[in-house]
């Protein structure tokens, strides 16, 4: 490691700390100024950043360019929507072989979302990870589309119209309907996911994962099979994104096929890229920048997508380090 790189390290830590504190301060100030809109905007940033943290684990550290993370985001959302629907109606999700009803408890929703998303990610990952490179991109995209069309063709759960969540799922302590409380929940989960990512990446597992990205043969030669490492990372990544999806559905009081659309996959990927691939806080920086620009430019013109396209193109062609790269210097190695 060069001396310049060593000097860059604490600077990235500093940038990360400023980002985290800024996101925490924003809704508190908004609350004081009586601007509830900005509290929900900050909550959106926290949730979308959480989805990005999930993707970053697979994409940034594992080099698995998944273009299908909307599937996990949307599945998490649908779990929240469906459990809330059954709890609201007092009906059963299934009656055979045993009776399973709904729930309006966030902790239950998150656990179910995690299990459902993990199982689906295990299946998708097991097939997709047999391939690599451009095949992997297209296959993850195709599987996400499959789940999208499945959601559209199920009239029981809203089909094309989606599902409304009439009552936000509840916390064991505190009131999740209070915007600030709900923000703290999302923010806490974001920090937990960032902490988990940091620990995972530093652990032997993370070293193996990054080695799988850089040189799979080398990893295999040193006695570690790459496939289980990558599959495990893919599933963890999907679960984090899935929990973000469940939060997003509860924030909006709605879940629909748009949460599963491939534009959503592209968007989550944009957060990671705007922030800087393979940087721990990239998703937070990217999501914050994205949401800020969206609400600023989107408020002035209908052509926000045009600006987004041009900006994304410029970042990819000319500014590959992303926002964190700009603020904290180049990445340490590679």
């Amino acid at each position, binding site marked *: 490691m060069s001396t310049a790189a060593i000097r860059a390290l604490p600077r990235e830590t500093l940038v990360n700390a400023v980002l985290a504190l800024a996101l925490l301060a924003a809704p508190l100030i908004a609350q004081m100024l009586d601007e509830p809109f900005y509290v929900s905007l900050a909550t959106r940033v926290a949730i979308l950043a959480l989805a990005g943290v999930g993707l970053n684990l697979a994409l940034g550290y594992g080099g698995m360019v998944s273009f299908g993370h909307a599937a996990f985001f949307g599945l998490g959302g649908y779990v929240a929507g469906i459990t809330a629907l059954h709890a609201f109606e007092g009906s059963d999700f299934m009656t055979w072989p045993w009776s399973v009803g709904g729930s309006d408890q966030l902790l239950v929703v998150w656990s179910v979302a995690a299990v459902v998303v993990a199982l689906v990610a295990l299946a998708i990952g097991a097939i997709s990870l*047999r391939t690599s490179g451009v095949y992997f991109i297209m296959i993850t*995209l*195709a599987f996400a589309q*499959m789940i999208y069309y499945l959601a559209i063709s199920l009239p029981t759960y809203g089909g094309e119209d989606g599902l409304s969540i009439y009552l936000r799922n509840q916390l064991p302590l505190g009131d999740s309907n209070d915007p600030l409380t709900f923000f703290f929940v999302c923010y806490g989960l974001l920090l937990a996911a960032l902490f988990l990512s940091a620990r995972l990446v530093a652990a032997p597992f993370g070293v193996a994962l990054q080695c799988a990205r850089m040189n799979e043969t080398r990893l295999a030669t040193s006695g570690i099979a790459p496939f289980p490492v990558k599959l495990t990372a893919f599933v963890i990544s999907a679960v984090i994104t899935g929990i973000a999806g469940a939060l997003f559905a509860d924030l909006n009081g709605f879940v629909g096929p748009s949460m599963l659309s491939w534009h959503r996959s592209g968007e989550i*990927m944009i957060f990671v890229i705007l922030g800087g691939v393979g940087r721990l806080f990239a998703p937070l920086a990217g999501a914050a920048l994205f949401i800020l620009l969206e609400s600023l430019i989107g408020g002035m013109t209908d052509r926000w997508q045009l600006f987004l396209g041009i900006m994304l*193109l410029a970042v*990819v062609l000319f500014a590959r380090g992303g926002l964190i790269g700009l603020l904290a210097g180049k990445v340490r190695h590679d």
Partner: protein
Amino acid sequence: MSVAFLIEQLLNGVQFGVMLFLMAAGLTLVFGVMGLINLAHGSLFMLGAFFCSWIAEISGSFWLGLGGGFLAAAAAGALIEIAVIRRLYDRDHLDQVLATFALILIFSEVVRWVFGDQPLYLDIPPLLSGALPLPGGGGYPVYRMAIIFAGLVTALGLYLLIAKTRLGMRIRAGESDREMIGALGVDIRTLYTAVFALGAALAGLAGGLVGALQSVQVGMGEPVLILAFVVIVIGGIGSVKGALVGSVLVGLTDTLGRVFLPQAFKLLLPASEAATVGSALASVAIYLLMAVVLAWRPKGLFPVNA
């Protein structure tokens, strides 16, 4: 269920497959020769459809429109190749995905800006209206038959171009060793632009042809793009033959699945449930097909040695 109905559905499946082939051929060529994954291919399809219906409306001729859509897509393809795509050949797939995703956003917004939010409609030309009689009664639209014909002619033309012409020889050489062909004095940059424009033109042609069957609107290219991905993954990325086989396979699976799966489930389940389960399964049938093919052959049916 009559024989005529079965033939009609088979033809629908083939027609859908042939249309997918026009999209998949360009995608797979561009990937085979330049190693580029191009998400904006669907935008070129959309562009072809818009120019076709716009020119057809002001000139009154479907054929002028079709030619115009073909040329407009080729021109747009050449333009983005020179302006953007060229810079991406040396980049990893992630950069290619993001940059071409950005192009989709830009194209969609610009088209919405220029042509407005309302969908355009394109009429089937008088020459191709009407129906062909089918054995066992009923008829099949001449226009759909013409699409099948046009697609097969294009497939043949593409085969001849790649196998028999000088340009085709260079394309094949570029696929197997791009440094060597450059060292032998072939202008590789122009070759790449030509291949990209060719793929774009095929997408534009597909867009123009489909424009008379459905409404022409922003975003129409995206579902087709993803199906074309499924096709080339099944066929083997980089293989034009694989794209043809994959397209017809996907076209038939999708069309026949939508017709017959709900009916098949009626034998097992009550009618209302059968319709739901059947149509849900039909909507994912091609993805299941893809999963099965990949589990069996991870590099597709006709793997290309990279």
